[in-house]
Every structure is written in structure tokens, then in C-alpha cells.
């Protein structure tokens, strides 16, 4: 591992040695084209990619007056945020949930997944240039977590001269959001600083209980990005971001406290172009995510507290080699160092993982693009991973192109799955991380807490496998006329070694000891269809649809073999279910759709839009005790959310906005905690 690091430094020095052989900057791109960096880690025109990818522009974000990343992603085809029991909102993509989707800011990963979910509502969209979404396994470039896809938030760059922007939005529930952006740029230097404060009084969907659905909160985001060009060929990028949130934490009528999140990231990137063929980056990224919470009882004595403190450090070096117009190669070497301190952990674990990747991008003819890539992640705590990927795009003519990609993705077992050591104080059950079992079970046994062992400890001698997947995407883009684009993508993700919990021992108190193990094989498959019609510059209509089947193979077999039973009511006799009764995984809707219209009235300097998103029925948990989601379970009903916004520009630099989110006031107090009901808001934006 240290050797790899030394090697990467060596490579950097060698590259730097060639610094004199410099000519032109080949990465200058016209910003009007939709250019994406996430898919290949090189700038590529979106329409030319052999992978399913999508860009959400700042123009769209501004016209719909979004505040948080969760707001805008919920309106994209096939994406939905799912509330976590901890209060966060995780993204679901191609039926894969938050723990399998890598979230990046300017190419660097966010951390802080307390139970696997990365809460994307903590990300403000106030200073975003665009959001890039790449679907399908992408571990060949990004390693762990990029099993289902990658979402990369590209922050805004400053324009020439001094610029500034103030934005304020206020809405129902006293939700206030204020941002200030200051920028400066000249030929050599640019800086962009951004401050955001977001707060809300929260809301209560169910007035009958003592708890609010969302407690009041406030958070701050500070970020600064600096770019300096030493010369035409050498430039430096430094960015820093700090996020802090404070929220009231109420567990019951008598237990009350606070939860606090503190997160920072520092990202440094040095880029040098040696000549028209060679280009290199040295990147250094470090981030810390800290979450603390406490509860006091009615007498103000401390009842419980919890903390979560994760740290990541990642140096990486990468180089691109472009021998000619038809071929390009990008390669990288890096090292992940990760630590976590957390309540209920047996140790303070440390992960070390050096990695190397290589990608070859070729255009053998002008109609064909081929992408071949692979990455190797070595790891201290679980089996090393080799993640290859191949993709091809073929262009029949200007109107029709097809593409296909096949890739491997993995998600490393997280700290919790390896090191958890938790005993529920009121009920008495115990959850042990996989690596904790060998030492902890004998201890519990010695204390007389174990009645009998169900899974022998020897089974935990082998390391836990990362969850892994093979993802296939086949699609095409058809433009029958110039202002109409039809885009279809069929997908299938075969996920293996999914980590689940099982009972490993019975306790003398009648409860169980649980631990993690590789068990399920699941798949998600379906297709996504998007259509955009833009007859002129003033009108745009778009629609999207996703069909999804997300199923567990073992469950499918059990239904097929007639091993699954249900009851009409909890107290009526059982009957047998057949294979058509299996619905699939929890929290997956078979159908999701959206429709959006954007309309600009030039004469009044006004733009307006109406957007609707639909989600069909889904099950949150098994309600008839057979542990599967079947047609006799209670489902969450399908629903549609409609939003409307209007924005008017005044005197060139002022913009006023008004809107209603969730026009028809849809709520489901019992099942959906993150939809707050109808929300009126007003907004003002000033450029200076």
C-alpha cells in the first residue's frame, strides 16, 4: 500500500519532468454543448456517450426553484428519494437504493452513511452548474458504491470580473433559504464563494401522536472554490466546503434532545498539460462527517447519546494520454484511507485501500465509439475487487444511434456490517458486525447470555464478500425530427452476495443475536423512456417513464415451489400463494413517470412551468408475516405530485419567483414522511 503511494508520487515526478513539452490546451470546450465528465472522467459530449447518462442543468434547477438536491432529483425519470427511518432521504436509481449510488461533488465522494443511506437533502443546489447522472455499474472508474450509478454535482464557476448573487426563498412551514455567492475571475485566477442558510420549522403530518414528522432544523453550507492558472498548461484547483446542521431530536413525549451534523471537505487538484498527448492530475481529497445526538429525559438528565465520526483521505494521481484523435487513455492510481469512530462499535476501525484503474476510449470509425475500462481495488478488510467494464455506441445516422454497456460494480461491506456491537437496552436483542462475532460470542457465552448457537463461529473465519453486481444497459436515441428526441434504455442489474442479517444465536433472555452474512441474489430490471419535444425556443415538453421489476431470486423460487403462505386477516387460516403473488422488493414501484412543460414568454420576461411526477403503489414492509411482499400485503397507494413555478425578470438583474409545490396537497402521514403537503413560496434573486 505504501509502495503504491510512493509509486504514484514517482509517476507524478516523472510526468512533471516532461513539463517542457507543452503545446495547446485541448480541453477547451464550448459550454453551450452538454458536456459531461462523470461518465469517462474526461470531458465528453453527452450525446456521444456509450453509457446511459443524463444532465440536469442549472437553468432547470433555477426555473423550478429547487433548494436541495432531493427536490430536483425527485423530478428525474427513474429517480426517487426514499425517506430513511433516521430522517434522511436516500436516492433510488434503477431500483437500487442509496447505498449503491455514489454521490460526488466535483468528482470527490461524499461520506457519512449512518445506516447505508446518504441523505441528499443535506446538499444545497444553490451554486450548482449541473448535476450529472450516470446509470449502470461504474466501479471500473469509481470503485466501491458505484454499483448502481454515480451522481456528480458540478459546482458553478465564476464569470469574468466581479460578480455577486443573492437569493432568498421563503415558503410554508417557515422554510427559509438564503444564499450569497461572490465571485471574481481573470485570466489567471478565479474564486467563487458561496454561503447558504436553510431552515424550517418542520411539519407534522400526524397530529394525533406526540411527535412531529419533521422537527425544526437549520443548516449552513459554506464553500469556496479557487482556480489558478500558473501557465496555459498548469492549473490548480482548490475547494473547501463546510456543512453544519442542527435539528431538534424528539424520541417521545419525555425524551428530547438535539442532533448535529458537521461535515467538511477539502479538495485539491493540480492539472498539468505536457503536450497535446499527455495530461496529468494530482488530486488530494479529504473529508470528515460527524453526527452527534443526545436525548435528555423529563428531568433533563442524559438518557442516551450517539456519535458517528467518519474520515476519508484520498490522494490520487491520474494521467490522460491521447495518441491521436481516435484514441484516448486515462489511468489513475490512488489510495483510500478511512476511519470511523462510532457508538456501539467494538473497535475504531480503519480501512486502507489502494487502487488502480485504466480506461481506453476509442473511435475506430466515426460511427463507432468503444469504451474499455477496469479497476482494481485492494483492501485490508475484505476481498479485493476487480471491476471491468465495456461499452459501445454505434451511430447509424444523424437520427439514430444505439449503445450498450456491461460493467461490474461492487459495494464494500460498511463499517457497521463489520464492527457493530449493539444490544437493545429495552428489548434485549444483540446485533454483531461480521468481524466482531468471533471475539464477542465467546464473551457473551462466558457471561451466560447465550442459550444456544445456531451458526457456528467458524463460519465467520472467512471474510465477508462485498456486495457485487453485473449491470447491463442497452439503449438508443432516436431523433425523428430535429426538435424531438426519444431515448430508451433497457437495464438489468444482477446483484450477488447481498448482505443481510440473520439470527446466529439464541439468548437466554428469549431474544436473539443477529449478524450479517452474504445471502441474497436479487435483480432489478426494466426500461426507462424519455421524450423531449422542443418545437421552438419558448416551449419545451418532456416526459419520462420507468418500468421496474426488482426481485429476490430466492423469494421467486419459494413462491414458485409453493412454500409461501398468507392469511386474509391476521386471524384467519393460511392459504398457499403462487408465483404471480410475489410483488418484489420493498419500496420499489413498478411504474414511475413524470411530465414537465416549460414555457417562456419573451415579451414579459417571464418563464413558467408545470411538472408532475407519478409513483405507482409499493410495499414498505411485510404486513402478513410471511416475510415477503405479496399481493395480499397492505401497499402504499400510488400518487402524483404536481408542482408549478413562475419566474419574472425585472431590470435585467432582478428575478422574482412564485410557486406551489405539491399543488393538490398530497400527503400520506402513515407511510411517506418526506412529502409535506402543499407548499407556497416566493423567491427573489439579485445579480450584481
Amino acid at each position, binding site marked *: 500500500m505504501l509502495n503504491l503511494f510512493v509509486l504514484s508520487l514517482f509517476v507524478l515526478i516523472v510526468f512533471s519532468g516532461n513539463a517542457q513539452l507543452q503545446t495547446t490546451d485541448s480541453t477547451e470546450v464550448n459550454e453551450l454543448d452538454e458536456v459531461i465528465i462523470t461518465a469517462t472522467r474526461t470531458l465528453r459530449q453527452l450525446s456521444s456517450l456509450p453509457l446511459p447518462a443524463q444532465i440536469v442543468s442549472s437553468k432547470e434547477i433555477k426555473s423550478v426553484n429547487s433548494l436541495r438536491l432531493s427536490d430536483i432529483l425527485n423530478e428525474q425519470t427513474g429517480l426517487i428519494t426514499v425517506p430513511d427511518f433516521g430522517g434522511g432521504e436516500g436516492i433510488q436509481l434503477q431500483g437500487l437504493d442509496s447505498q449503491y449510488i455514489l454521490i460526488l461533488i466535483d468528482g470527490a465522494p461524499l461520506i457519512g452513511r449512518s445506516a447505508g443511506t446518504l441523505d441528499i437533502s443535506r446538499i444545497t443546489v444553490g451554486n450548482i452548474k449541473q448535476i450529472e447522472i450516470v446509470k449502470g455499474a461504474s466501479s471500473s472508474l469509481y470503485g466501491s458504491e458505484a454499483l448502481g450509478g454515480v451522481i456528480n454535482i458540478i459546482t458553478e464557476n465564476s464569470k469574468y470580473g466581479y460578480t455577486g448573487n443573492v437569493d432568498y426563498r421563503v415558503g410554508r412551514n417557515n422554510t427559509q433559504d438564503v444564499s450569497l455567492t461572490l465571485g471574481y475571475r481573470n485570466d489567471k485566477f478565479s474564486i467563487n464563494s458561496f454561503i447558504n442558510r436553510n431552515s424550517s420549522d418542520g411539519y407534522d403530518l400526524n397530529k394525533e401522536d406526540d411527535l412531529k414528522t419533521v422537527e425544526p432544523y437549520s443548516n449552513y453550507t459554506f464553500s469556496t472554490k479557487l482556480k489558478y492558472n500558473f501557465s496555459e498548461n498548469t492549473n490548480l484547483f482548490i475547494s473547501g466546503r463546510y456543512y453544519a446542521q442542527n435539528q431538534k431530536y424528539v424520541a417521545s413525549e419525555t425524551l428530547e434532545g438535539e442532533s448535529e451534523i458537521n461535515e467538511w471537505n477539502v479538495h485539491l487538484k493540480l492539472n498539468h498539460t505536457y503536450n497535446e498527448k499527455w495530461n496529468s492530475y494530482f488530486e488530494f481529497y479529504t473529508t470528515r462527517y460527524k453526527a452527534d445526538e443526545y436525548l435528555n429525559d423529563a428531568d433533563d438528565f442524559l438518557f442516551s447519546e450517539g456519535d458517528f465520526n467518519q474520515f476519508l483521505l484520498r490522494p490520487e494521481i491520474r494521467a490522460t494520454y491521447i495518441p491521436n484523435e481516435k484514441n484516448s487513455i486515462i489511468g489513475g492510481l490512488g489510495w483510500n484511507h478511512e476511519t470511523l469512530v462510532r457508538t456501539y462499535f467494538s473497535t475504531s476501525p480503519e480501512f486502507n485501500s489502494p487502487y488502480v484503474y485504466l480506461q481506453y476510449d476509442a473511435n475506430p470509425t466515426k460511427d463507432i465509439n468503444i469504451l474499455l475500462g477496469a479497476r482494481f481495488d485492494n483492501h485490508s478488510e475484505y476481498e479485493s475487487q476487480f471491476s471491468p467494464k465495456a461499452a459501445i455506441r454505434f451511430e447509424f445516422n444523424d437520427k439514430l444511434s444505439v449503445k450498450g454497456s456491461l460493467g461490474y460494480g461492487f459495494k464494500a461491506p460498511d463499517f457497521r456490517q463489520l464492527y457493530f456491537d449493539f444490544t437493545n437496552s429495552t428489548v434485549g436483542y444483540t446485533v454483531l458486525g461480521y468481524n466482531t462475532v468471533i471475539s464477542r460470542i465467546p464473551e457473551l457465552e462466558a457471561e451466560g447470555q447465550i*442459550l*444456544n448457537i445456531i451458526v457456528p463461529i467458524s463460519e465467520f473465519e472467512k471474510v465477508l464478500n462485498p456486495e457485487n453486481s453485473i449491470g447491463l444497459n442497452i439503449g438508443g436515441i432516436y431523433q425523428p425530427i430535429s426538435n424531438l428526441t426519444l431515448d430508451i434504455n433497457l437495464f438489468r442489474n444482477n446483484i450477488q452476495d447481498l448482505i443481510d442479517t440473520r*439470527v446466529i444465536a*439464541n439468548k437466554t*433472555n*428469549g431474544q436473539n443475536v443477529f449478524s450479517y452474512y452474504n445471502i441474497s441474489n436479487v435483480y432489478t430490471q426494466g426500461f426507462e423512456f424519455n421524450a423531449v419535444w422542443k418545437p421552438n425556443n419558448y416551449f419545451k415538453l418532456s416526459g419520462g417513464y420507468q418500468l421496474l421489476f426488482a426481485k429476490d431470486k430466492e423469494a421467486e423460487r419459494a413462491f414458485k415451489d409453493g412454500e409461501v*403462505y398468507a392469511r386474509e386477516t391476521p*386471524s384467519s387460516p*393460511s392459504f398457499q400463494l403462487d408465483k404471480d403473488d410475489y410483488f418484489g422488493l420493498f419500496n420499489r414501484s413498478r411504474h414511475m413517470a413524470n411530465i414537465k412543460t416549460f414555457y417562456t414568454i419573451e415579451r414579459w420576461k417571464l418563464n413558467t412551468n408545470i411538472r408532475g411526477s407519478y409513483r405507482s403503489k409499493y410495499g414498505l414492509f411485510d404486513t402478513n408475516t410471511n416475510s415477503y411482499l405479496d399481493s395480499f400485503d397492505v401497499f402504499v397507494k400510488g400518487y402524483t405530485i404536481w408542482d408549478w413555478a413562475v419566474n419574472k425578470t425585472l431590470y435585467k438583474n432582478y428575478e422574482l419567483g412564485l410557486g406551489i409545490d405539491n399543488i393538490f396537497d398530497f400527503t400520506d402521514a402513515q407511510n411517506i414522511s418526506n412529502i409535506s403537503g402543499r407548499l407556497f413560496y416566493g423567491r427573489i434573486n439579485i445579480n450584481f
Partner: protein
Amino acid sequence: MKTINFLTLLTLFIGFSSCNNDDDSTTLLAVESELISNLHAPQEGGQGNPVSGEFTKFNFALGQTTTSDTDWDIAFRGTAIIVNGGVSSGGVDEPVRNGEAGAYIATGTLGSVTSIDTSLIIQDSATSFAIPTGSDNGWYNYAGPPTHIISPIAGRILVFRTHDGKYAKIEILSYYKDAPANPDAFVDEDGYYTFNYVYQPNEGVTSF
């Protein structure tokens, strides 16, 4: 506890004794199929303390509960079910086993479990009961918060050998008093078993 339904199946079985002699064939007793409602089996302790309290014993041949120390087949306390066979786990107030009872859990409906695989039958032991305790291990599922409901798992049929070597099968329908269609753990009293059972009163017959 009361028996609210007594239904005798008229199915008669032709016995096959070890020697295939027609002269030996005898008319067998009718299989008994009944519904037991509100068998009350409370427990004391729990919540970190040792569970205690008398087990409510049941005898299939009688079709009702019993206080006999010997002529009982199975017994209930809270969510635990024990059999009169094997050895005691040493728990507080646990009765002595002096019969040959045993049990296993079959998958099916009460009607579809028609023959007994005697090789699967196990007895209570010092470390575990023949019907395992704990959510999802045996006959029930505990939903946890917020509902805290205990529901019998669909498709789990408990097959028993009685203390005197006959066989029975039961399907538990409810753990709450009067078997409400949609029980509420905060309203309905628990520890009241409602179950259907089928008892095979003929010695050595392993089918229903």
C-alpha cells in the same frame, strides 16, 4: 377456555398392519378436528427478568386443558410452547417432562399437511425447545415498534406427537383475546391462543 366447535370427521381409515391379512383389519377411530379459542397462557416476568408463571397444559385426547402432571401433551406460557417429552431447559416454573411427546414445524395449510414425517420430530432439550422461541424462529412473528403485534406466521403448521405416542397438528390463528381480525397490541389482551387442531387418536397412524 371453551370449545366452541366440535366437528367430527367421518373419514374412516383402513388400517394396514404389518401383516397384510384382511382378517386383521379393524375400524379405526374418527380423526378429531376442533377449534380451541382463548386458551389463556399468561406469563410473568420478562423485560430483562426471568420469565415465570405456570404453563397452561393441553391434552389432545381430552380436547381441553389439564392440570395433570403426567397426562399433558403440550403446554403454553406467553409465546413459548413446550412438549411433554425430552428434558426441561431448567427455566422457572417449567414442568417435568415424563411423556414421549415431540414436535416439528411443517410448512403448509392445516389441510395440506396430511402425513407426518416422524424422522423430523424432536423433543425439548436442555438448550432449546422443540418449537423454537423468538420472533420468526417458531410459530410467530413479533413486529416490533410501532405496532408490537405478535402474529402467527402464515403456513406454519405445528406437528406434535402426544405424550402417549399419537399425533396431532395445529395451526395457531391468534395470540389475542377473541381473535380480533385486526388485533391492536395496545388494546387487545395477549396470551390468549386461538388455534385449529386435528388429532389422530389411533395408535401408530401417521396420516390424517
